[in-house]
């Protein structure tokens, strides 16, 4: 019974209780084992949950991942540095840009390459557009998980307009391969700025409608208030980062704390919330979407219009990066995304480790928050933690 109410308890001891739930006796007929996924429309991406139910209540949850495992870390060890950059963006399909940026940044840091100012701004713009696109998809996902299909249609069509901007900027909708070691691949096309501003305006207007329809909705509130409460005590022991942590009032944002790219020249504040439940997290993300639109506008305002966007690079086919070790990170939509890279002076990387925030959100946190939930709320809870399986298993 203690495990049932575990998530409602407060205090340090409860947050630090990492123990696995006791196995139950399935033959007693009192419990049901239910698999959600991988073939299940309510699961984010391709993963599965092994739920143990007592009536409608979940008393045990196990996350199973690995359905998208491609062995990126192994593949990168046997590709040259320039080959790797086409591979890394495939790691997380909803947000490939963060992988490109972090990989390029790690390589640049190890080989001491300075990138030109314009490339810094273009990268910032690219990352913020990606954040916007990803948040728009998330809002649709959260709304869909609670059974409202109007909002996903609106947000996903606006996400598509952002993808159109990507297409102009980089030539691709999903896998841009835009940020390369040494800078970016191209500048902005003619008239991009105006079109980007138009998309920002229409998206902002749509977000207002989403707020009215989804957030000021009695049923949404009934469903999401009190669902999946993250105790602020849990944040450090569970490694919770990003909007999930900020919604609990913990002001941590790598863009502000350890500014990278042009973020120290942009005006913004860390947004924090005080509701630690699914509704609070949704609200937090809505505000961050708006902040992202604001940052994109600032980028467009302040960006240098001409200048080189690529540093002078050695012949990349013979490129050897000096031996070294580094850990670079950036604030992606879900929190701290990091690349740990070890090189040994050869043409190949020695070891890359990709740290995605879902690694803890989808496994340790999810398994804990699911206990005590209603079976109907699992999809909503899972989306509200914003998990992407590909960054867990890579």
């Amino acid at each position, binding site marked *: 019974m203690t495990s049932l109410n575990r998530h409602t308890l407060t205090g340090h001891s409860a947050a630090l209780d*990492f123990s*696995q739930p006791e196995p139950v006796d399935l033959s007693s007929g009192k419990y049901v084992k239910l698999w959600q996924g991988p073939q299940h429309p309510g699961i984010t991406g391709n993963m599965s949950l092994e739920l143990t139910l007592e009536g409608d209540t979940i008393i045990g949850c196990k996350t199973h*991942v*690995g359905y998208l*495992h491609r*062995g990126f*870390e*192994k*593949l990168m*060890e*046997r590709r*040259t540095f*320039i*080959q790797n950059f086409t591979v890394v963006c495939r790691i997380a399909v909803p947000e490939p840009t963060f992988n490109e940026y972090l990989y390029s940044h790690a390589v640049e*840091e190890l080989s001491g390459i300075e990138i030109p100012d314009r490339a810094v701004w273009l990268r910032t713009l690219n990352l913020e557009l990606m954040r916007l696109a990803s948040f728009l998809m998330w809002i649709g996902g959260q709304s869909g998980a609670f059974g409202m299909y109007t909002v996903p249609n609106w947000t996903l069509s606006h996400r598509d307009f952002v993808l159109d901007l990507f297409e102009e900027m980089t030539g691709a909708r999903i896998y841009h391969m835009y940020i390369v070691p040494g800078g970016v691949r191209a500048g902005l096309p003619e008239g991009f700025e105006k079109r980007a501003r138009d998309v920002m305006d229409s998206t902002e207007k749509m977000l207002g409608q989403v707020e009215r329809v989804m957030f000021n909705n009695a049923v949404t509130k009934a469903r999401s208030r009190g669902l999946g409460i993250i105790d602020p005590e*849990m944040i*450090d*022991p*569970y*490694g919770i980062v990003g909007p999930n942590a900020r919604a609990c009032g913990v002001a*941590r944002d790598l863009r502000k*704390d*350890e500014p990278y790219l042009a973020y120290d020249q942009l005006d913004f504040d860390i947004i924090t919330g005080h509701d630690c439940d699914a509704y609070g997290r949704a609200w937090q993300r809505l505000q961050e979407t708006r902040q992202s639109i604001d940052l994109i506008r600032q980028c467009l305002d302040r960006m240098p219009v001409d200048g080189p966007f690529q540093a002078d690079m050695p012949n990349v*086919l*013979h490129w050897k990066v000096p031996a*070294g*070790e*580094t*850990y670079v*990170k950036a604030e992606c939509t879900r929190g*701290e995304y*990091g690349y*740990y890279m*070890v090189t040994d002076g050869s043409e190949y990387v*020695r*070891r890359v*480790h990709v*740290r995605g925030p879902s*690694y*803890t959100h989808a*496994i*340790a*946190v999810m398994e*804990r928050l699911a206990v005590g939930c209603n079976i109907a709320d699992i999809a909503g809870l899972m989306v509200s933690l914003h998990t992407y399986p590909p960054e867990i*298993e890579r």
Partner: protein
Amino acid sequence: MNEKTLNTMLEKLKQEFDISDIVEHKPRLTTFTVSKQHAETLIRELRDREAYTHLNFMTCIDYIEDGIFSLVYMLHNYGKKHSLGVHVNISRNGEEVFSIHTLWAQAWTYQRELREMYGIRFTDSPRLDEDFCLEGWDQIPPMRREFDTKKFSHERFGHREGRSSEVPREHMKVQLYPNRGGDEE
């Protein structure tokens, strides 16, 4: 984090623990190696006393030429905005390692992954032997350097004719500059 406090901390740690190879990679990242006997206590100390409360990740590097695995624990101090990489060298042949699943909730997942990908066993780590990414794996752990993924892939999954080279330099030599006869410079 300013250099003085960092040095004081490292000096203090040095007196208590067997620490070597201190490298400051950048102002916000320092790594060092600690012996396996001291590592568990050191990590606990860092978390509880020095406020390195966030475990960024935990991973392993395979130095096959030296016959060691180097475990890496990346700890982060939010107050000082400083990361500390703790390396622990262990031998490659099945040495059992302490587990940190009591310190961080997500640690057992990392340990489960390392068990699967490198075959490292962690003492008392929960659900260690459950499959993580792979299912029905019957080879040596795939992230070990001696495992040849391309050979394995061709043997098990076959391959479709038409793909000849995956090394861009070779491809360019043959396809784009045939006249130079391999002299690319």
